[in-house]
């Protein structure tokens, strides 16, 4: 018995050592020259498992679509692109480990990802110390991109979107005075609200706010609470499933009120989850316009590969690859290094499927927003309220 046990221990520790050795080996063997190599390797951070798994999957597919296209068209300056996607579980610590992994691997030229602002911020210190670009498709916290010159994001910042929501949707479009805000208690939710509040107050709105922990399912007591203050508009700030849950439960309570959401964008899935989708207005920097051929094509290709309709998130992920491609093109004949990519990215001016992508000094972009609503089960831009140029 005893012998058996010791054997088991020995065997397991052997496997452990071997596994460590293997992963160590693979780490060093891929490190090679950068200039002459014909493939340029990118590191992808995405929550393939955990609470944000569907976004992570979207990232993965979005990136791969872009890379396949680029490679099929002959690559960038003769180089092929390649991406290695690591699962970060939506966990900042795991994300840091993976970012360190990519940063240590000299063949990785830039990191794309991660999904949450929290994870991106956790990695900021690492990418700064190692000097490698972290280009996030979706991080929207205003205090992320300025953490390091290597940090970039193309989602647009909440301090752009949240005031837009207050000024144009609530004030000009709806003319609301009494606002009820229900927000998720997260990094993202807090910074949304903090950027929303000053503008709302400036416009003389009366704001009542309640927050909930992410993962919350029952909102009936919050709705009863909000209902008792009798607001004109119900604003929900969340990116996940809670948006639908809150509006549905408000409907079920027989509460007839205008729904506004900040965060989900023009998500096709959201329409299917709502009992009264027609009652919803959102802001979105991006919109799958049915008349836009490239977009429709992109959207259907994505749906083919993933099995679900795209949101803005995979579209942004798709764009990040093109940003890197453009940066490499801008480097031209120069040696492709991490720093060169950072510099080229910093100066780049691009247009992606999600619109114009020009980095500010901090490394974010300023987006133009639209007011979108639902008609006949489809997203539409609400005409006549295009304030983008104001």
């Amino acid at each position, binding site marked *: 018995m005893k012998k058996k046990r010791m054997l088991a221990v020995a065997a397991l520790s052997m496997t*452990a050592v071997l596994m*460590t050795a*293997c992963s*160590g080996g693979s780490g060093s063997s891929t490190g090679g020259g950068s200039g002459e190599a014909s493939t340029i390797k990118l590191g992808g951070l995405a929550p393939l*498992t955990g609470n944000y798994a569907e976004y992570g999957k979207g990232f993965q597919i979005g990136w791969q679509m872009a890379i396949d296209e680029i490679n099929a068209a002959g690559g960038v300056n003769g180089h092929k692109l390649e991406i290695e996607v690591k699962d970060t579980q939506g966990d*900042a610590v795991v994300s840091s480990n993976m970012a360190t992994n990519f940063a240590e691997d000299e063949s990785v030229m830039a990191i794309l990802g991660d999904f949450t602002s929290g994870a991106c*911020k*956790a990695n900021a210190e690492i990418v700064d110390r190692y000097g490698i670009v972290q280009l996030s498709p979706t991080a929207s916290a205003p205090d992320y991109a300025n953490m390091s010159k290597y940090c970039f994001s193309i989602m647009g910042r909440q301090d752009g979107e949240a005031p837009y929501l207050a000024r144009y949707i609530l004030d000009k479009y709806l003319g609301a005075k009494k606002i009820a805000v229900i927000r998720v*208690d997260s990094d993202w*939710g807090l910074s949304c609200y903090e950027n929303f509040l000053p503008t709302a107050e400036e416009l003389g709105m009366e704001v009542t706010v309640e927050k909930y922990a992410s993962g919350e399912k029952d909102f009936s007591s919050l709705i009863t609470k909000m209902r008792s203050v009798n607001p004109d508009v119900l604003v929900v700030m969340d990116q996940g499933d809670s948006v639908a849950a809150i509006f549905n439960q408000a409907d079920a309570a027989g509460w007839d009120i205008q729904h506004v959401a900040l965060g989900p964008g023009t998500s096709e899935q959201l329409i299917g989850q709502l009992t009264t989708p027609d009652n919803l207005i959102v802001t979105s920097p991006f919109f799958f316009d049915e008349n836009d051929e490239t977009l429709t094509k992109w959207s259907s290709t994505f749906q083919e590969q993933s099995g679900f309709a795209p949101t803005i998130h995979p579209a942004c992920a798709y764009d990040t690859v093109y940003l890197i491609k453009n940066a490499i093109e801008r480097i031209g004949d120069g040696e492709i290094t991490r720093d060169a990519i950072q510099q080229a990215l910093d100066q780049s001016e691009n247009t992606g499927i999600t619109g114009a992508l020009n980095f500010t000094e901090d490394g974010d972009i300023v987006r133009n927003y639209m007011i979108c609503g639902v008609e006949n089960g489809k997203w539409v831009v609400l005409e006549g309220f295009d304030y983008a140029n104001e």
Partner: protein
Amino acid sequence: MEKAKDFYEKHKLIVYLILFAVSLVVPFVIEQALILRYICTIMMYATLAGSLNVINGYSGQTCLGQAGFFCIGAYTCAALTKNFGVSFWIVLPLAGILAALVGLLVSLPTLKLSGIYLSIVTLGASEIIRIIAQTWTPVTGGALGIKQIPYPNLFGLELFRPKYYYFIFLIIGVLFLFITSRVLRSRVGRAWMAIREDQVAAKSLGVETSRCKCTNFMYGAFWAGIIGAAYAPFVNYIESSQFTTDTGFNVLAMVVIGGQGTLLGPIIGSAIVTILTETLRFLENWRYVIYAIIIILMMWVRPQGLLGASDSILAGGKIRRKEKEQGGKKA
């Protein structure tokens, strides 16, 4: 194997010296920072699992809330070093003491409760601690968490790289093993084990079970707090979602896989679980499926864990069954 044991008994000093030398060399031999980071993670979880093992394995209580104490340690360290510039080395014991005090608070119900009731109380307490961390914004940063936690500083050297951090975890881990093995081989440890084996008998021998359980809880919480404090600068960024009950279950799995009630068990458990989850990362969700199957298989084949004795009370060994039969006959 017996030979190895004999050798160890005879040349303890040599064995220790060799281990010491090897552990000193490791960070200079292994070049990849990521591997070192994993080794650090393993050592960290080993100590955390060890602290849980003191409670579950040595005094036989079912604590499911170790993540809570871990959380307290991490936030104490982050808040003090970041906001008040207190030195990491002062914060370390402070975090332990604070966690121990909370441990005392949590253990108060243990005076009356046992078994399932105790599990749910510790589980609930751990969740409450986490929610407090999530909502007490002025101190814990609330949902934002605390980012850019200062790295420990040793005589002007900023211990940023895993290479240096390795030594912090190593020293804490070795200290934990050393002190715990001493405590266990004393009157205090014997009393804990007596409670684990048979609480009624322990009482009849004058063992103050309530007090012993409290000190046991505090001791376990103390080390969880310390390792939490060391964890915070290591990851540089903490937020409440890192301390969910899943973290607690994960640590519990490490303890049980390695072997409850053994000093080395949690180390093996931590190594196996960490290496497994890291190397199988490419499998995405299937990784958890495999992990789950390993846990279940483990419970079927070796319920006492890899290092646990097959005849321990924790394994539900043969004696127990025999006694059951006898009891049955008597009845």
